[in-house]
């Protein structure tokens, strides 16, 4: 009796487990593909069209927050099951997943290398390994840098409000800091910038090497550019010119709504976040212009195919279609996510795009120009482990807990540990 009980319990368990990790082919004979995404890739309509034209394919989107997405994906890759057929890899973590590329399908096997010329060279390179022999992911959007500012708050501080005039105020980040001083003198109750962390991140994204040299060696402590970026941001924090906000958090949203800061760094994808946070009441108040220090890239993603999926070929076909020029153009028009393909962002229609919410700013032109001049930063394998250490260090400065120098010393120590 006891053995039978154990037996039946085990059988039940096996059934439960089998049901849990099912998926893939369905009873109706359709191939089921899942897409693991975060935030808004703008794929809803595209997917419906794809299913309409491919009657044998059924697509399911899974959207979660980015951090959760990355963690989930890591555990799914480790466990060997559960990952979506196509997963999005964000630029900040793609190098980390590249180190585990044996868990992914080499898209070159399905002819991905023929598509190479669609993308900006650096974007293609970020998604590949082994000198381009291993194609990990196909590029979706990119995060070309701009700077967003509240024109009404600038007017109150006696600063110019026209976006070309504003751009002339800050050719460099040092000039930007000077504008911050002027702004603070006139309007002490409004913070000049939301957070020093984003300033730091933006400056760093304008250099070719940050924490890691192109040979993946750790160079943060001897790279002057990291120190300069940190000092610039820390100085803003020490002077109380930042809102000391966690970027893109609930507090950040509230501050946007209350109009308690006047500028923020704007990668193309951030426009949607600002609009959502500030709401309709602030329509036309926010504007976007060129960032100090030239072009840079922050964010943007890739579509990759984990090896554990059952239909790698169909998954590749879908990823290829979703990242194709025609689709990237449509996504830009619908969501504002900037295409990572020169032919698309140079397209007359894309260049002519204006954003109504941001005081009819010619976003197509601003971001495409920034994209042309950008020097992509090399992301080391452990970039995503080191970066947050410096971010929290800047928060300590903004909270008044440490001086810039103290925060820097502690950050270097922690970063060296994280880079081990």
């Amino acid at each position, binding site marked *: 009796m006891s053995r039978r009980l154990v037996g039946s*319990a085990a059988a039940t368990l096996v059934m439960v487990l089998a049901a849990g990790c099912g998926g893939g082919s369905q009873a109706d004979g359709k191939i089921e593909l899942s897409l693991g995404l975060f935030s808004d890739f703008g794929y809803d309509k595209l997917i419906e069209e794809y299913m309409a034209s491919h009657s044998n394919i059924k697509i399911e989107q899974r959207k979660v927050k980015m951090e959760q997405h990355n963690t989930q994906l890591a555990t799914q890759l480790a466990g060997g099951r559960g990952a979506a057929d196509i997963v999005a890899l964000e630029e900040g973590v793609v190098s980390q997943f590249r180190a585990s590329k044996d868990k992914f399908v080499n898209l070159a096997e399905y002819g991905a290398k023929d598509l190479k010329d669609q993308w900006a060279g650096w974007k293609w390179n970020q998604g590949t390994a082994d000198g381009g022999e291993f194609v990990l992911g196909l590029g979706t959007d990119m995060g070309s840098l701009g700077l967003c500012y509240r024109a009404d708050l600038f007017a109150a501080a006696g600063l110019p409000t026209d976006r070309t005039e504003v751009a002339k105020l800050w050719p460099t980040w040092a000039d930007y800091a000077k504008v911050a001083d002027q702004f603070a003198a006139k309007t002490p109750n409004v913070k000049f910038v939301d957070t020093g962390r984003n300033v730091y991140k933006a400056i760093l994204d304008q250099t070719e090497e940050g924490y890691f040299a192109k040979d993946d060696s750790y160079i943060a402590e001897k790279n002057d550019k990291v120190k300069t970026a940190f000092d610039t941001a820390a100085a803003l924090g020490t002077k109380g010119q930042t809102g000391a906000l*966690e970027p893109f958090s609930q507090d950040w949203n509230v501050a946007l709504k209350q109009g308690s800061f006047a500028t923020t760094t704007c990668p193309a994808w951030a426009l949607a976040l600002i609009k959502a946070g500030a709401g309709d009441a602030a329509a036309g108040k926010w504007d976007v212009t060129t960032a100090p220090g030239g072009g840079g890239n922050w964010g943007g993603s890739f579509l990759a195919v984990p090896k554990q999926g059952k239909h790698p070929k169909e998954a590749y076909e879908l990823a290829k279609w979703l990242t194709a020029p025609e689709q990237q153009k449509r996504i830009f028009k619908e969501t504002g996510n900037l295409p990572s393909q020169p032919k698309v962002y140079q397209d007359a229609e894309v260049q002519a795009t204006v954003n109504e919410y941001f005081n009819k700013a010619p976003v197509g032109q601003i971001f495409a120009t920034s994209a042309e001049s950008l020097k992509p930063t090399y992301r080391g394998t452990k970039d995503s*482990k080191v970066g947050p250490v410096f971010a929290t260090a800047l928060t300590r400065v903004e909270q008044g807990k440490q001086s810039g120098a103290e925060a820097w010393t502690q950050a270097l120590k922690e970063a060296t540990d994280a880079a081990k």
Partner: protein
Amino acid sequence: MTVTRPETEAAPAVSVSPSKEPKRFRLSHWDARYTPYLIIAPFFLVFGIFGLYPLVYTAWVSLHDWQLIDGNQGFVGVANYVELFGDAKFWNALFNTLSLFVLSTVPQLLAALGLAALLDRGLRGSAFWRAGVLLPNVISVAAVALVFAQFFGRDFGIVNFLLGFVGIDPIDWRAETWASHLAVSTMVMWRWTGYNALIYLAAMQSVPKDMYESATLDGAGRWRMFWSITVPSIKPTILFTVVTSTIGGLQLFAEPALFDPGFAANNSTGGSDRQFQTLVLYMYEKGFRLFDAGYAATVAWMLFVVVLIVAIINFALTRRIAGKG
């Protein structure tokens, strides 16, 4: 635990010659002897699969250099444990965990006791009040944490707003260690006080009323009766809540995690300088942000040991205190 049954003791005396023993008798004898084990077996089976196996496997992982995605990178012995004992971040997390545990559990259980005593006095609409105290526990922890995170906002939080009325400057609830511990503890207390109060209430209602009656005749006041009759009578229940609160309190994760606005981003360290990073948060950071599964497993095992030690201390202390009456 030893289970002695009269039948089993008597059995050998009867069956001097087992071969002659009737089959029917032997069956019922076996039935009496083994059925209890059989009935509790499913629990241990499930516990073995979902409790013991992960526990042992975690210990195994903690002895290796183990990367989350790429798996086993080689046996390293106790190297992870050696590193852990010299890791200031671990001790910081341990301090935070114990501090948060004391700050939330002690007032929580005392408040629950008081609340239960009030509910036990036969209020009008008692069902309403009793259901009411359980409400905070029914609401999802994520929702509670989000609301409290807003309450304790630095710039636009309602707590700072109210403190402003009594002339206290705004507090940066996430920057100061003590302030953050206070805020997180408030969340925990909000969620669990009612739950524990209901458990105490159930126990209080089974205390014989004649004990109170005779105490009243002897001239005892309410306060005296509460400490001399009620509390000693519900001793086992208090023990139970102390042990479960200990286990829950030391495994605190969701509340501090969601209190940290960085949790949604990629830097969930429980404050800019780990002001409220608990052991579980530290384990999460190591395992799921830095992908160092070996070290995370080591933290997990140390947490297990800490819970065990604190639970034993608690058990002994509570038994002694409650035993006085």
